């Protein structure tokens, strides 16, 4: 196929293979074949959407568009004010990785904007061809489904737009419209249903959760000689809500061990909840405030039931956005919590505060095998904050890494901090059906990592996002890394932390564990 050859030609030059910010020439239709599986009717209905496409689907879709225009200033405004300057056209990692022009942020918005113009503006009604307006047809609906699920809602484009137009807002609205005519996505919508039924994305019921946590307690005791608890559903001061991936797989689970060790070292009374056993909120991905709220309310209920004073969120990018920008709005006010602490807090804020206060002891040599870089997750970077000043979300995780690790190096400018490149799997795309787009969308980040490896010998990348971690462990092998070269930040903390009374402490201080414990008293 000629198209395929053009794509290959665009994306395989020496420069294309090494420059993380390489911008290919557009090749039309390059990824129009990449489509995820639509959701089955029973999963649609669970979320309050029709299971089948109604006969009057056009009317329904347009009515939904009109409704969203009245509910969200962002949506209404962004449809009107784009001047097509082109500033965003080279900023999307999916465009950079695929060369498909419909993956340029403005072109992605235009898929919907063209229909908006046709039905809601005078020039679009009178002169559709002049202003690029078009009818809502079945082909258009399919095109929406294809390309709005090739967007990870990472907001990189919104940083560079002179009007702050955020494609994520358009993508969310488009997905909500698709859902309203029964055209939902299997991966996201099945997962949301699982949270409603069981409490977490992975569908781990309480007994499974409890036995996992027990196993982890044993593992920590074997490693350190210290009995560190991972309490579940116990009355406590701190409720930790973390992505359920942390209960399940590497490298996530090492991060969870890290949080537990930090809590233990500080003598914190904390607990996990089986009811709110998920920090992730996939309803954000599909732009559904109703469903997003239903998930957020689980956190509120757990906090009330367990009588906690504060809520802390584990390492996860979009979950931190859902918590930081949405939790208060959707499930607040949280006036029953201790007003001394922001609601919610990030685990990195908590750990960094303890490090600054000198309350944690580390042996940085434990991480000397590693030359570490940090991947800023998009939602953390561009849709949240940590600490009390703008940009704390960049500094705090790096500060933690530097406190526990001797070798830290940044990836190139333009690929980190607010300009960070998405892992390629965010926004509800972390499904095998979309592997091609995930690999291609992750390529700019991988090229940036390669540069750090060549320049500084970086061999590990740390992240604070469950989706990033899962995505990287899957795609890093394609780029010559091992699947365990992606780490949790709290995994590095866990490696280096010296718990009071532990074997590590004894070894460092030249005493055995019992004496150290006595000395500590």
């Amino acid at each position: 196929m000629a198209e395929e050859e053009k794509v290959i030609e665009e994306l395989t030059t020496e420069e294309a293979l090494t420059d993380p910010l390489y911008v290919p020439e557009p090749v039309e239709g390059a990824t129009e074949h990449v489509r995820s599986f639509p959701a089955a009717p029973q999963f649609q209905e669970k979320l309050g959407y029709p299971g089948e496409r109604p006969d009057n689907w056009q009317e329904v879709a347009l009515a939904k568009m009109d409704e969203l225009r009245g509910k969200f200033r962002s949506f209404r405004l962004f449809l009107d004010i784009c001047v097509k300057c082109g500033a965003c056209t080279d900023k999307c990692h999916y465009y950079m990785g695929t060369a498909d022009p419909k993956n340029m942020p403005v072109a992605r918005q235009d898929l919907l904007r063209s229909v908006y113009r046709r039905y809601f503006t005078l020039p679009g009604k009178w002169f559709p061809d002049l202003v690029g307006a078009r009818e809502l047809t079945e082909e258009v609906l399919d095109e929406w489904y294809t390309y709005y699920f090739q967007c990870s809602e990472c907001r990189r484009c919104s940083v560079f737009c002179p009007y702050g137009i955020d494609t994520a807002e358009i993508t969310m609205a488009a997905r909500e419209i698709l859902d309203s005519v029964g055209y939902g996505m299997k991966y996201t919508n099945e997962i949301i249903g699982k949270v409603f039924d069981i409490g977490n994305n992975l569908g781990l019921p309480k007994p499974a959760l409890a036995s996992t946590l027990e196993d982890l307690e044993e593992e920590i005791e074997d490693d350190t000689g210290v009995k560190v608890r991972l309490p579940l559903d116990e009355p406590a001061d701190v409720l930790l809500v973390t992505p359920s991936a942390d209960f399940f797989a590497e490298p996530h689970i090492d991060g969870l061990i890290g949080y537990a060790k930090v809590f233990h070292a500080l003598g914190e009374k904390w607990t996990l909840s089986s009811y709110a056993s998920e920090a992730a909120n996939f309803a954000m991905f599909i732009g559904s405030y109703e469903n997003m709220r239903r998930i957020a309310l689980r956190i509120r209920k757990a906090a009330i039931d367990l009588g906690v004073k504060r809520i802390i969120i584990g390492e996860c990018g979009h979950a931190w956005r859902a918590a930081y920008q949405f939790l208060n709005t959707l499930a607040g006010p949280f006036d029953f919590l201790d007003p001394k602490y922001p609601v919610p807090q990030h685990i990195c804020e908590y750990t960094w505060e303890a490090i600054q206060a000198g309350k944690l002891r580390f042996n940085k040599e434990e991480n000397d095998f590693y030359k570490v870089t940090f991947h800023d997750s998009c939602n953390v970077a561009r849709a949240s904050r940590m600490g009390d000043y703008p940009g704390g979300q960049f500094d705090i995780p790096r500060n933690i890494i530097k406190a526990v690790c001797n070798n830290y190096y940044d990836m190139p400018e333009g690929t980190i901090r607010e300009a960070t490149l998405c892992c390629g799997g965010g926004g509800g795309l972390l499904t095998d059906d979309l592997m091609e787009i995930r690999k291609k969308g992750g390529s700019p980040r991988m090229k940036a990592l390669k540069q750090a490896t060549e320049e500084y010998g970086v061999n590990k990348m740390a992240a604070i996002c469950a989706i990033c971690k899962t995505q990287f462990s899957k795609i890093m092998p394609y780029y010559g890394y091992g699947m365990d070269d992606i780490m949790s930040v709290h995994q590095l903390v866990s490696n280096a932390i010296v718990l009071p009374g532990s074997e590590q402490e004894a070894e460092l201080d030249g005493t055995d564990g019992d004496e150290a414990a006595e000395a500590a008293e």
Partner: protein
Amino acid sequence: MITTLYALLYYAATVIFVVGIAYRVWGYWKTPQPANIVTTPAPVTRTGVVWRMFKEVAFFESLWKSNKWIWIFAMMFHLSLWLIIVRHLRYFIDPVWTVVVLAQPFGKYAGFFFVLGGLGLLFRRFVVARVRYISAPSDYLMILMFIGIGLSGLMMTFVTKTDIVAVKAFFRGLMTFNWQPLPTDPFVLLHLGLVALFLIVFPFSKLLHAPGVFFSPTRNMVDNPREKFRPVPWLPPVSEVTFDPPHGSKQS
């Protein structure tokens, strides 16, 4: 005849411009922004946001980060436009304000940069394949309209030497409903025709970016979602919600 035509055209254009923009801005104003979706890192105080918006509107800060070529052309285009507008106030006010007098020499020559900036933006639209892909016919026409306004204005100023006193009398006449004849120099008619078109098209087009940018929630919000509770207007308060039952309990 032409005087009547242009007089009516300008009354109509002014009404469409003012009412149209007011209507659109009212739409943005009254539409809620339920959650705080500011693009971070963002200021944590109101004053900080004012400064951020100022940098955005006066210096196109985000565009500077994004693309230096677009920035240069856009800066040239918009700065010139402001100078030109200030200079043109002299045709509507009497006596002429000092600021407007001071702007006169700059405003006159700004016309060249205005056209140059417009040509730069038009050139990009043709030459850069990515920008060509996203351009509709109206995008080209819009920029051609501006270039036309600029060129006809420059012709009047530097080449044909229009009877500008008479043009001023025409506009003063419009404002006081005491119509005066409009000079029928073709460049005057072209210039004024295109400007009227600009006024009419404004509320229906992407030109809304000018008032719209001030409403952009990713730019104009204070980064304080943890401190400031902003409920979603169409959702019931938490005191009235029902929670999902815990897993394993009796379910519907």
